[in-house]
């Protein structure tokens, strides 16, 4: 009896240990097969597989194994993976088609042989296979299409060539938007519009932008109070992302040529009092500063857009009402 109890206890401990074992090794095991090749040398395909495993390793919580077998179907991949005790199998080909190199990859559930995802990408030069490895790994890990994984630094030469995507750019920018005076100066003229032109020079993380514009109130220049502003300045921005939605912030300084007027009731004299409505004008050049934050759209494309909000101040008194301060809202297009 005593022996029976010992056996029972041993069985419970063993079962508990076995049950706990999967939890201790929760990470999946992925096996990446040797890739089939057609018109591409084996060394290139092997390098690509190594890069792919490295990129997947950074994005998937799994243990990776390599299989020497070249599989051309899900069943082959499943069987091989099952033999290696893997949960997921990756197989595919690297092929040459004319001047293109095609990468075809399948991700298969090793337990039932079902295809989890399929990824296809082609490049026009072998040097871009590292980018393909990065993009495909991101697509596999994120459950996305490879076209959705484009970002600056991960654009292939072929994607740049059709003048659709690009690695970095410089070009003309055009902004249209609204201006809301937030200080007493210019407030009499009310809100206005801005039409700014710029030269946007963009690197991976930064952008520099010389700019000139025309801003004016929209309640009619023959109205009682009006303002016009011509900014000439330079801004520097830090871009927080490399994808197609990239926040950015920065600021700059420059000159502001501005003019404003307003109607005032003037009373003069102590005994002989005269009262009239006068059109008071003020204009000149002042030093201007601004801070700006926004969101770049379609950043990986040749034509990009942005939406932004900007705080702008002209460091000069206008109409004895202090420093004009404004909030500018703009939609920008870069060509």
């Amino acid at each position, binding site marked *: 009896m005593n022996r029976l109890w010992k056996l029972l206890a041993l069985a419970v401990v063993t079962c508990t240990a076995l049950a706990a074992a999967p939890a201790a090794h929760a990470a999946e095991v992925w096996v990446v097969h040797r890739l089939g090749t057609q018109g591409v040398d084996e060394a290139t395909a092997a390098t690509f597989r190594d890069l792919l495993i490295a990129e997947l390793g950074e994005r998937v919580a799994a243990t990776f194994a390599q299989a020497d077998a070249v599989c051309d179907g899900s069943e082959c991949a499943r069987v091989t993976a099952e033999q290696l005790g893997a949960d997921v199998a990756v197989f595919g080909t690297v092929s040459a088609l004319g001047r293109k190199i095609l990468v075809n990859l399948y991700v298969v559930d090793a337990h039932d042989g079902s295809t989890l995802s399929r990824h296809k990408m082609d490049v026009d030069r072998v040097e871009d296979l590292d980018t393909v490895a990065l993009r495909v790994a991101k697509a596999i890990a994120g459950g996305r299409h490879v076209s959705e994984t484009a970002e600056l630094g991960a654009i292939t030469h072929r994607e740049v060539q059709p003048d659709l995507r690009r690695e970095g750019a410089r070009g003309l920018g055009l902004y249209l938007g609204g201006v809301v005076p937030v200080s007493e100066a210019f407030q009499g003229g009310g809100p206005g519009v801005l039409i700014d032109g710029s030269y946007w020079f963009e690197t991976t993380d930064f952008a520099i932008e010389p700019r000139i514009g025309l801003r004016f109130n929209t309640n009619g220049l023959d109205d009682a109070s009006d303002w016009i502003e011509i900014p000439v300045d330079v801004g520097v921005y830090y871009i927080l992302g490399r994808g197609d939605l990239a926040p950015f912030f920065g600021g700059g300084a420059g000159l502001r040529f501005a003019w404003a007027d307003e109607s005032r009731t003037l009373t003069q004299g*102590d005994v*002989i009092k*005269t*009262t*009239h409505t*006068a059109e008071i004008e003020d204009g000149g050049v002042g030093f201007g500063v601004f801070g700006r934050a926004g969101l770049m759209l379609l950043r990986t494309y040749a034509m990009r857009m942005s939406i932004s909000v900007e705080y702008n101040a002209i460091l000069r008194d206008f109409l004895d009402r202090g420093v004009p301060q404004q909030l500018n809202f703009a939609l920008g297009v870069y060509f």
Partner: protein
Amino acid sequence: MTISTRLAALLVALGAPLPACDLDSDWPFDRACAASVVPMSLQGAWTVHGDGKRTSCDDATLNASELALTVGPLDIVQSGSTLTLAEPLSLPPGVSFTFDGARVDGSCVTFTTTETSAHGDVVRVTFDGTRDGSRLSGTFTGFGPGTCRLEGDFSVDVRR
């Protein structure tokens, strides 16, 4: 003289404007307006109200196509045909004011006011008007501050 000629002369005579007390006018019977008015004292508290324009100012903000003007209140004393301030006004330091050249000629009244500001700016306005009971109205002309020229219409409320 035919009947038609006489009738035309009569119509012209009836249609002619009544004598006005415009001292700048060539109308030969200006001074005659005094004889038709029963003299009445203008003594009392005057407040002059005027509407006009100010032009030719070096400081363009002072030019005005529509200008409101007030003078007073002034405590005016009449002695015969002379009008004077009852007593000097209480004014801020450096400011002076004079009421002079006041003359009553029947229904016609002329007076000039001059104010000098603490900054030395002089505004001088001459009022030419006719009175109707205790009410006085007419035109004003003047200058100042600086190169400004003033002109317009005025009226005076006299409170006794």
